[in-house]
């Protein structure tokens, strides 16, 4: 993957002043970040004393695709990905979406002396890193921070849902930590009702490592909104699990599911495996609860139970489920998380006094 870097324009932006006025001051990634057939290289850029994050699209990867892939299709896919992320940012602007990291600037740079010198790029606010760099599982004082960060993420997700965008790829590496807040990053895998997402026809467009169980067993709601929002609910719950137990809900579920019933082994239907998934889920939530601070145990367990319920038609807030409103609406979860975060913050303040 790192071959021919010297002949790769996307890898050679360091020190350049871009047409948009940004100066490339540091190369962040040592290697390409790959997402399907889409590759990017990351840099720090500076303009008017503001340091931001640049994601350069490595279109030269056309040349290294395998013979079985169609070059035109791959090109088209990469261009669509670039356009979608840029257009989605524009779409979300002025729609009160505050907890999602959007494209700040976008452009194309043409570098001479390279086989393919065109480098399209997107510029974002520079975060301190993703949440994995921030989480310290040994530090109990961090609880307040963790809860506030999860609350920020839930707010961001709710904001996206409000404008009919589903993130689909919520996972620790996509939670960006800023000095005073956390934001959801990487909308590349998201789907939007009103925009032509490259993944609009996918049943699940995110990272399969974090996928909800029904996806593994090939079951999904044919209704777009119910399907994608049920997925986001699960992903949010799984993120809460990661914040406290340090592993994903899918990992916990797999750990407690006898091998016969795991998605790779099971040859039956989702209906047939439901009972066993519930057994694994019950054990998984019990294990999750052991990593929680006593004062938040009950509430957080309830939240995760509802957000990650392995059977999508029963997932979501109980009140919404019983009163017939949108069961995947995150409003009630956001309120609960806000309350928990406030309690934890008050606890920290009282301890400091």
């Amino acid at each position, binding site marked *: 993957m790192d071959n021919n870097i010297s002949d790769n324009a996307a890898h050679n932006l360091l020190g350049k002043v871009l047409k948009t006025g940004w100066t490339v001051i540091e190369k962040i990634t*040592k290697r390409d970040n790959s997402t399907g057939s889409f590759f990017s290289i990351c840099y720090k850029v500076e303009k008017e004393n503001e340091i931001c994050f640049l994601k350069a699209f490595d279109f030269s990867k056309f040349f290294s695709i395998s013979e079985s892939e169609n070059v035109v299709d791959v090109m088209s896919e990469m261009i669509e990905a670039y356009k979608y992320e840029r257009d989605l940012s524009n779409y979300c602007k002025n729609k009160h979406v505050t907890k999602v990291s959007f494209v700040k600037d976008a452009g194309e740079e043409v570098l001479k002396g390279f086989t393919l010198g065109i480098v399209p790029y997107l510029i974002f606010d520079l975060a301190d890193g993703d949440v994995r760099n921030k989480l310290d599982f040994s530090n109990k004082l961090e609880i307040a921070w963790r809860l506030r960060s999860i609350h920020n993420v839930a707010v961001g997700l709710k904001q996206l849902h409000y404008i009919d965008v589903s993130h689909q790829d919520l996972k620790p590496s996509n939670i960006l930590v800023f000095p005073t807040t956390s934001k959801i990053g990487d909308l590349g895998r998201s789907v939007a009702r009103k925009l032509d997402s490259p993944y609009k026809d996918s049943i699940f467009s995110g990272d399969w490592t974090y996928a909800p169980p029904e996806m593994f067993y*090939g079951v999904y709601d044919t209704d777009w909104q119910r399907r994608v929002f049920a997925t986001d609910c699960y992903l949010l719950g799984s993120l809460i699990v990661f914040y406290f137990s340090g592993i994903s809900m899918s990992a916990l579920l797999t750990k407690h599911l006898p091998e016969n019933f795991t998605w790779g082994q099971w040859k039956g239907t989702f209906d047939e495996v439901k009972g066993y998934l519930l057994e694994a889920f019950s054990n998984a939530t019990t294990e999750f609860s052991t990593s929680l601070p006593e004062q938040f145990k009950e509430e957080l367990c309830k939240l995760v139970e509802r957000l990650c319920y392995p059977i999508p038609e029963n997932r979501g807030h109980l009140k919404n489920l019983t009163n017939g409103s949108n069961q995947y609406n995150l409003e009630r979860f956001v309120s609960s998380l806000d309350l928990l975060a406030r309690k934890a913050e008050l606890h920290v303040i009282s301890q400091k006094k």
Partner: protein
Amino acid sequence: MAIFFSRNDRHVIPNFRNFKKTTELGELDSFKKLSTRQIFIPNIIDYKNEWEDNKTVAHAADLLSAVITNNVKSDKVINEAANFILESSKFSTSSQIDLAKRILNIEDAKINAINLSKITQFIETNNHSLIFDKIRELKKSILKFNKNPIAYVELARYYSIIGQIEKANYNLQIALNLSPNNRYVIRSLVRFLFNYNDIEQAHDIVRRNERTNFDPWLMSAELALSTARNRGSKFVKRGIEIVTSDKYHPHSYTELASSIGTIELLHGNFKKSKQFFNASLKSPNDNSLAQAEWASERDVNIVVNPADFQVSYDYEAQSMDFYHKAEWEQAARLAEDWFIDMPFAKAPALFGSHIAIAFLDNNKESANFCRAGLISNPNDPQLLNNLAYSLANTGKPNEAEEYINKVFNNPTIGEVTKLCAYATLGLINYKKGNIDAGRYNYQKAIEEARLLKNAEYLNLATINYVKEEILVGNPQSGDFIKMLKENKEIDVRKDLSIQRKRVEDLFLSRTSQKGIPSV
């Protein structure tokens, strides 16, 4: 007089084991040979790269999460991440540490299951507290998450082990409501109901379930229950199609083939029966193996050596096999294993008691089997009778009387059990010195057996009666022994012959002590 275990009928009723064991046995696997789902190709390269660029606990755990979820084989990088978590245990959560251990195949010392190896351990009070701990744990889990059908089945199983049948039934019904089509739930419930003689309800549940139309594991249970009820089944034709179709894995139809083989055997269609038993043995489980072993007693053309099959928990088949080979000690040890595997079942307890009394002359061991069996089946008249018999023979006639009274107080007691109980009461009276009452009870038992035309128990009661008469020094004992010796019906029964020989030896030892000439 002890009631002997008899296996005139055996049906392929599903077993009721814990969820873990049942899963390991493959009884809950899909019956489909191939999956129709499209499987994605896992890709964890990004997780590996990020771990290599950021050596933190969170990055390592994120990689391990991806490994376990995607069922990816471990390699150097993954092992390095797992070891990193273990080395940074102060900064890792217990879930991360557990996951790392699992990936590195490090066994945890934590034991959740109740592991008992001996029947005496089972009887001891300590094990009750273990079971109650488990019940408490499950109730707590249900309180927290009440939608898990498996937890209710597990809870029911523990209740049934300690004989709390109503609570067990209640929890099984909840499990059925939560998951009406779940194979584990249905098979467990069916076995439970069969065990406690509600065959009709067991049959109705499995017969009416929509899954029974296509699930071989439920179809086999339906066929077994309809056979037990002497009824025909609409599923026979479909069952034959499944067994002969080659579309199903042999393990998924092993019980089904066994059930069909049983029906054919009972109808005298030996050729067909053999074919189906052979099919059931392509990939047997303990149930189908025990059934084939049972069938081999009825048709010499069905030859089964349980030791030839690598079947887990095949204690019943092995125990029966040793029994037929007259290896009584081994048979008793395996009956004990059989009981420990299925502590709510009466059959292994009664079988163990039978071997202990009839062949090992070990009343203490018989009493242990009965006491263990009575924990789950506290009012079972056969186990109560055998316990009373063993206690009377070990110098505890008063305690024995308490148990035999429970038998007579049971309104559902069968005729054969009743006649055995009369004989046991006779034994108790002899041991208490009430000779006339003892004689009266034995004579009543013999008369009842005669009326029922039950030669086995007529002879057994007579042997037991003669034994007590020898012990009280009846001068006519020699005539009784002569009469027993001439009884050709006893000659053909191994257990009765051994009992008779024991009485003859007793007579000889008594006569040689007193200088009376033997017969």
